[in-house]
């Protein structure tokens, strides 16, 4: 079997084409958002919101509302509760995050277990890439496109918010509003990525690509290109490998992203561990020669 056949064979199945489409869309969207999350220091917030949307999605299913609406409501609820617990008790933010998102997530688990429905817990927790219906795909495309568009059009404001929110305030902008919009987009993104890799692994797609790109460049503009490119590549590799190895698709996608991160962490020209070690050794040698 040559390379072309290797790549073409899975595309003969509709479910594989849909799986690839959803993976690439979710990977790109998460990767773009992750650039800001990593720089603001909101990685844990990404984890929290992506878990906390679960009860929202289930309740939306029960009352027949759009998933995105339920996710948004619970995404914001989680952020508000985290802020509330942090500000009105002696607990620090990490503890507040840990309490709020696990509680909301558990509420979602309980809701699923008592709701007679077609919702499959396993699919929500671990994703259901191979079972994506045409309707699912359309929801991912529309939600993903809207979220992506807002992120790109307002990227300068988000970046200023991440870098210097006091300056944003000094210019008469409303930094709290910018932050709230970004968290709303995080909730929407979680719904999209949920389809692909499930609640648990969404956080990986929200952190790894941005972190990888950050180790490669000193320019935020380049980060916004490198991060989604890496994530899409990892997504495609993950889906193909899972097809041929008959392994968990969501798991394989995140594993690919993790593998790419490791390579960059070790071999990045400027920030990589290897380059760093070499630089230290060279400096020492120079010192010895000088001395």
């Amino acid at each position: 079997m040559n390379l072309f056949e290797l790549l073409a064979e899975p595309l003969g199945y509709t479910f594989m084409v849909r799986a690839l489409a959803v993976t690439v869309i979710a990977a790109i969207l998460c990767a773009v958002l992750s650039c800001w999350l990593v720089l603001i220091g909101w990685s844990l917030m990404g984890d929290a919101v992506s878990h906390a949307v679960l009860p929202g999605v289930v309740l939306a299913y029960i009352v027949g509302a759009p998933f995105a609406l339920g996710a948004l409501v619970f995404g914001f609820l989680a952020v508000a509760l985290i802020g509330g617990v942090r500000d009105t008790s002696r607990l620090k933010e990490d503890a507040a995050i840990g309490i709020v998102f696990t509680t909301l997530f558990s509420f979602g688990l309980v809701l699923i277990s008592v709701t007679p429905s077609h919702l499959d817990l396993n699919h929500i927790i671990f994703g259901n890439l191979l079972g994506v219906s045409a309707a699912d795909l359309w929801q991912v495309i529309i939600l993903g496109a809207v979220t992506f568009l807002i992120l790109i059009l307002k990227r300068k404001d988000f970046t200023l918010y991440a870098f210097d929110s006091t300056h944003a305030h000094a210019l008469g902008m409303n930094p709290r509003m910018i932050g709230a919009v970004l968290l709303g987009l995080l909730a929407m993104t979680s719904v999209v990525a949920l389809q692909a890799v499930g609640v648990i692994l969404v956080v990986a797609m929200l952190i790894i690509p941005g972190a990888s790109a950050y180790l490669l460049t000193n320019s935020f503009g380049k980060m916004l290109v490198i991060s989604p490119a890496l994530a899409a590549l990892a997504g495609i590799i993950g889906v193909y490998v899972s097809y041929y190895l008959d392994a968990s698709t969501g798991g394989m996608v995140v594993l690919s992203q993790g593998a790419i991160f490791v390579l960059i962490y070790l071999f990045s020209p400027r920030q990589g561990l290897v380059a760093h070690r070499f630089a230290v050794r060279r400096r020492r040698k120079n010192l010895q020669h000088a001395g």
Partner: protein
Amino acid sequence: MTLAIDVANATVHYGSLLALDKASIQLERGSVCGLVGMNGSGKSTLFKTIMGLVKPDTGSVLVNGTNPLQARKSGAIGYVPQNEAVDWDFPISVREVVMTGRYGHMGFTRRPRKADHEAVEQALARVELTEQASRQIGQLSGGQKKRAFVARCIAQEANIMLLDEPFAGVDKRSEATITKLLREVADQGGSVLISTHDLHALPNLADQAILLMRKVLMQGDPQLVLQPENLAMAFGLDPMNRGEDA
């Protein structure tokens, strides 16, 4: 002529902690004013009050004769942050930082036009950072970093500049450059308020000094305000002889 900054009887509490006690300061247009006081004397709180980040319990704040929000929206207030408040690893170049000063002049997507690019290049030239403009912001020296943020205020065309500890971690040469620059800003009608520990630099730079200890102890000519007996009121000792330890 309206004052650049007019804070009258501002009192600010953080919880039960009194941070500002009926503080009143006036800053005229075209002048440089140094804000002197210990850590915890309310310097930062006063800055935040002027910027509208903190609302005083009592008293009033006028900036350019209007409320702080209006003043901010008109782009009048430029701000140079403290070293500690900046993420120096952020993937942003010096030129991009200066460009953020132009955001108030831009539309919904903050797409820079020709005038914005020109303003940025001119501001970079004035602070002598044209050569370093493409560097990542953390790759500058202490003094260059401060100048980059001053350039942002210039590009913004802010007529009021607030600088929080602009001389911290800055070498003597950069200090002289920044001093000259701020004097130019003031001579062209801009107003500059700086908080500083560097009392030696003040007489050359500032037209006025304010001694702050939650309340305004004194406002007047720097030579007069920085007399040892006055500093003793604010610091409990004479910091001019103690250098950085004070």
